């Protein structure tokens, strides 16, 4: 396809209006696409020109907000991060993400994702409550310590991993790859002291031990996160803890506030008074 050539593609979109419909049905739209047109642009074309009642989520349109997850030809993708051309087909079938309830058309109910995410305490926990409430400085962390969990910080909570996971499909109470991956992310952070809380949560039924390592989550993730790896590493930690062989390093110490830190090299004094 040259850059300007326009091709007509059929978007077969699953529609469902809870106020009118008893079950979902499909509606077809003809959408002009050219090289580089994303599925999201196709949906926006439909909304602007063909049917303004079509519901879908979008915000950033650049693969960072995690709003636009949907099934495109039966596989979970971010609509804004997926070009129509990738499918080498004249017809695209769009459905809302599975393993979640539908609010309307292509809008899934993400409540469970966020509840599960919150349940694993996805933030740094320190024993020093005073410092947690009123932080006085940052914590020191080496680049190698950052590498332990860095890839997991790229998670945008889009839910594609949950949509791809066969365990999430069969076990509605399963915490899911997103939350378990984030549980690992915080447990692996050298600044964190909340491992015991999180281990107790992920050790329960429908959690870390219920992953059967299909690794469909890691394949589907649009941000290169490997939740399946996170789950295996989390298991290793939980098992080592239960067997009493878990090595724990002392948590990261506070960085000296800049005002008190001595510069490593001689910095000349200000010669002009700052205004």
């Amino acid at each position, binding site marked *: 396809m040259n850059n300007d050539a326009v091709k007509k593609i059929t978007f077969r979109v699953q529609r469902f209006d809870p106020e009118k419909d008893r079950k979902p049905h499909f509606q077809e739209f003809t959408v002009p696409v050219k090289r580089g047109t994303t599925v999201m642009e196709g949906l926006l074309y439909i909304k602007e020109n063909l049917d303004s009642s079509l519901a879908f989520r979008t915000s950033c349109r650049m693969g960072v907000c995690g709003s636009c997850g949907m099934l495109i030809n039966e596989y979970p993708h971010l609509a804004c991060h997926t070009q129509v051309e990738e499918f080498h087909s004249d017809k695209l079938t769009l459905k809302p993400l599975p393993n979640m309830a539908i609010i309307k058309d292509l809008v899934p109910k993400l409540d469970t994702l966020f509840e599960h995410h919150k349940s694993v305490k996805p933030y740094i926990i320190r024993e020093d409550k005073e410092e947690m409430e009123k932080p006085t400085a940052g914590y020191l962390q080496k680049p190698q310590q950052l590498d332990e969990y860095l890839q997991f910080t790229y998670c945008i909570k889009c839910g594609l991993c949950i949509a791809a996971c066969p*365990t999430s499909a*069969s*076990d*509605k*109470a*399963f915490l899911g790859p997103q939350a378990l991956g984030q549980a690992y992310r915080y447990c692996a952070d050298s600044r964190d002291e909340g491992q015991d809380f999180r281990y107790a949560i992920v*050790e*329960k*039924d*429908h*959690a870390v*031990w*219920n992953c059967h390592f299909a690794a469909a989550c890691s394949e589907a993730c649009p941000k290169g996160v490997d939740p399946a790896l996170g789950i295996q590493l989390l*298991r290793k930690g*939980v*098992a080592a*803890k*239960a*067997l009493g062989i878990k090595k724990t390093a002392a948590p990261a110490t506070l960085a000296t506030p800049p005002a008190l830190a001595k510069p490593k090299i001689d910095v000349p004094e200000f010669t002009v008074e700052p205004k």
Partner: protein
Amino acid sequence: MKNTYLQISQMITGALVAVLLAIHITVQQWFVVLGLLGIKVADPTTWGSMMERAHQGSWVGIYIALLAFGLFHALNGFRNILLEINLSALAIRILTGFIIAFGVIFLILGTYAPIALFSSYR
């Protein structure tokens, strides 16, 4: 930590079943393989050969261990699968009770035979 201990046991018994099953299958079949290579050894599936093993403590140990580990592994694995259907706490307790009872009954039945044979007159 209950789930963690159960899962660690599942992995360990899985590995033990792999080893014990390999021993069992090899011993039962190796005469066929060796026969194909032209080496003649006694058929381990004859009555006499089986009785001989039945009177050796190490074999009795291997068979009982295979039974115990296999039962634990299969029944705990089966329970894991069933727990993924969202059952009530009561249903889980009843299910667990049934599975333990089933395991214990078959362990007793399965251990009785080799021990009875072992202590029988040769």
